[in-house]
């Protein structure tokens, strides 16, 4: 709060932001859980602080939820950067051509199954899916989560992450391939490729 800011202006900003943030908290927290896991509460705290400071510059109330989401996504990215999780895009070229569909068909882990591919997916519990996503580099996890877990459109994600649309499409492509490959690696590592592993 600025020392010479009129009290009425501060109160108005506070109540407007409070109402917005309180309304959006469940959604913001869920998104933060998916992006930074156990650091979700801290990331939302960061976003509230930054959002409060910038709220006076927000022109369009209708855009407020998206605006606050963008702030949260940036706070989550900052946390990833601070931990040095960033990877270069060129490191993952070998994932580009991976097809989980073909891998499952070729390896045939459940020979007696008449729905092989579905049975593969059914081996994964909620914790497993979360763990697989957590293994992905942030560069690819963020677009993937925003697009397929949270339902954002590709253009919106490009805006949120401040990259050109073409770059975002390429990252989503690699993210999907990497997700497929990590699902397979995870299944191998944790013994999910055995008949009735989870039944």
């Amino acid at each position, binding site marked *: 709060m600025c020392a010479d800011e009129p009290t009425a202006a*501060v109160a108005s900003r506070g109540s407007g932001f*409070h109402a917005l*943030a309180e309304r959006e*908290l469940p959604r913001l*927290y869920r998104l933060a859980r998916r992006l930074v896991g156990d650091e979700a509460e801290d990331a939302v705290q960061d976003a509230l602080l930054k959002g409060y400071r910038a709220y006076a510059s927000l022109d369009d109330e209708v855009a407020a939820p998206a605006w606050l989401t963008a702030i949260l996504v940036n706070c989550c990215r900052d946390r990833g950067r601070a931990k040095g999780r960033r990877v270069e895009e060129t490191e993952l070229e070998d994932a580009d051509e991976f097809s989980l569909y073909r891998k499952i068909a070729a390896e045939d882990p459940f020979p007696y199954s008449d729905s092989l591919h579905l049975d593969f997916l059914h081996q994964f519990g909620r914790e497993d899916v979360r763990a697989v996503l957590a293994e992905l580099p942030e560069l690819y996890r963020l677009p993937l989560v925003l697009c397929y877990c949270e339902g954002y459109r590709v253009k919106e994600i490009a805006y949120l992450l401040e990259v050109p649309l073409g770059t975002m499409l390429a990252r989503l*492509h690699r993210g999907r391939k990497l997700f*497929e490959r990590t699902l397979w690696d995870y299944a191998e590592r944790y013994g999910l490729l055995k008949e009735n592993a989870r039944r």
Partner: protein
Amino acid sequence: MITCAEAVRQLWEYLDGVVDETDREAIEHHLSFCRRCCGELDFAEELRRFLAQPDEPDLPADVKARLLTTLTELEGPA
């Protein structure tokens, strides 16, 4: 005409609705006769549903209380 590799490479973009009209028609033409790529398409749809399933708990009451306290503190004394 596109190959299986070209069709498969674009299946998710096709499902996301971000391929252009020409590519969409080429993919749909390919899918009209290629059973294996139809299998890839079905699996891609399953994977999308798999990713979209809600898997995070609701905002816990104690976390909500702490975040609301943060909000109140930001506003300063009444």
